[in-house]
């Protein structure tokens, strides 16, 4: 699982730069490079500030616990607090509108975290808020490859779709549109061939989950095949690996489908 580092500090503002430095150093140890390490520092600063302001609603109300898991080119950060349960959906996304009155500075920190990190995921476990953030070395990710999302019928009634490259906020909408075209035509048995996906960010995960739900609601299923190790790590990190049926190869997925249909 890589090297793990932990830091627990009181939830007060003067702890924040110390936690940010701790995480920045971990990111550098993971070989993430200066820019990515800066993004980690800053995202953690924003996260801890939010914890003090919104979860604890003040200083010295409880600790902030941080763990960093360091792998080559890959840093996973968990931040835990005992404060008020945090629901990110309560925070409006700031608009990039030029209308001053529409700017809601409250969501800025969260907005920056999402811009700077590859994965930002909130959960509530054992009465604690748990924030998971992942940052991946940029050079291992090909810049802005469009997921072409070719699909075809591999068996009568079974469709395979093959996104390529990086599935993130920029590219996921195209992929989502392709999945929706399939689903809207009543094609509810879908294999997503993940073998050509180099990286998946929150937006890509959301797209898959929502398509999986739609297929399931219609009595079908959406399964995954051929995930690379890096991509499957992201699924594990955010706890999504149990949601999907996941096959080593597309053939395995087809065999499983034929089994269900028989």
């Amino acid at each position, binding site marked *: 699982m890589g090297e793990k580092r932990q830091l627990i500090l009181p939830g007060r*503002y003067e702890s924040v730069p110390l936690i940010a430095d701790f995480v920045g150093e971990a990111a550098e140890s993971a070989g993430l490079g200066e820019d990515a390490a800066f993004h980690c520092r800053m995202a953690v600063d924003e996260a801890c500030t939010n914890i003090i302001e919104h979860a604890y609603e003040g200083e010295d109300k409880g600790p902030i616990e941080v763990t960093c898991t360091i792998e080559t080119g890959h840093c996973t950060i968990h931040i835990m607090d005992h404060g008020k349960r945090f629901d990110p959906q309560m925070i409006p996304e700031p608009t990039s509108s030029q209308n001053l009155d529409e700017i809601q500075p409250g969501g800025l920190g969260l907005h920056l975290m999402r811009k700077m990190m590859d994965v930002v995921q909130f959960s509530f476990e054992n009465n604690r808020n748990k924030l998971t953030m992942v940052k991946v070395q940029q050079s291992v990710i090909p810049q802005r490859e469009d997921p072409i999302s070719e699909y075809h019928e591999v068996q009568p009634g079974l469709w395979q779709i093959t996104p390529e490259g990086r599935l993130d906020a920029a590219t996921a909408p195209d992929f989502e549109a392709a999945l929706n075209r399939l689903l809207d035509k009543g094609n509810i048995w879908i294999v997503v061939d993940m073998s050509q996906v180099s990286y998946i960010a929150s937006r890509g995960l959301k797209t898959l989950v929502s398509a999986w739900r739609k297929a399931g609601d219609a009595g079908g299923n959406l399964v995954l095949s051929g995930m690379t190790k890096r991509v499957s790590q992201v699924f594990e990190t955010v706890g999504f690996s149990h949601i999907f049926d996941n096959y080593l190869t597309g053939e395995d997925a087809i065999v499983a489908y034929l089994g269900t249909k028989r």
Partner: protein
Amino acid sequence: MGLGDKGQDALSIVVEEMHRVNLLVVSGRVDSNTSPKLSEHLTRQIDSGAMNLLVDLQEVEYMSSAGLRELVSALKRVKKDGGDLRLVSPSPRVKEVLDLAGLTTLFEIFDDRVKAVGSF
């Protein structure tokens, strides 16, 4: 644990009152520790009737959303009175944060102090 250079001292602000504009030269870190100090200076300027503010960010090594928030709320106040708050010389890091926050369209940003002062 003392505040040390991670506390309020990590930020310093020098104010220069000019003919048409008041210049705030900010240096150090603007984060949740130090943003109250920025807020205090901006508020003091606006309360004393200054509507045209120029914030020099050249020496700011770090700015988190806590700092952005103060700049946005000061901008809102001076705009109401027909004034403006403009920024000069943000470092590449700070410029990136302004970009990601979607604030580069909101603030007029200059890379030269003389031009910035002249813009008022």
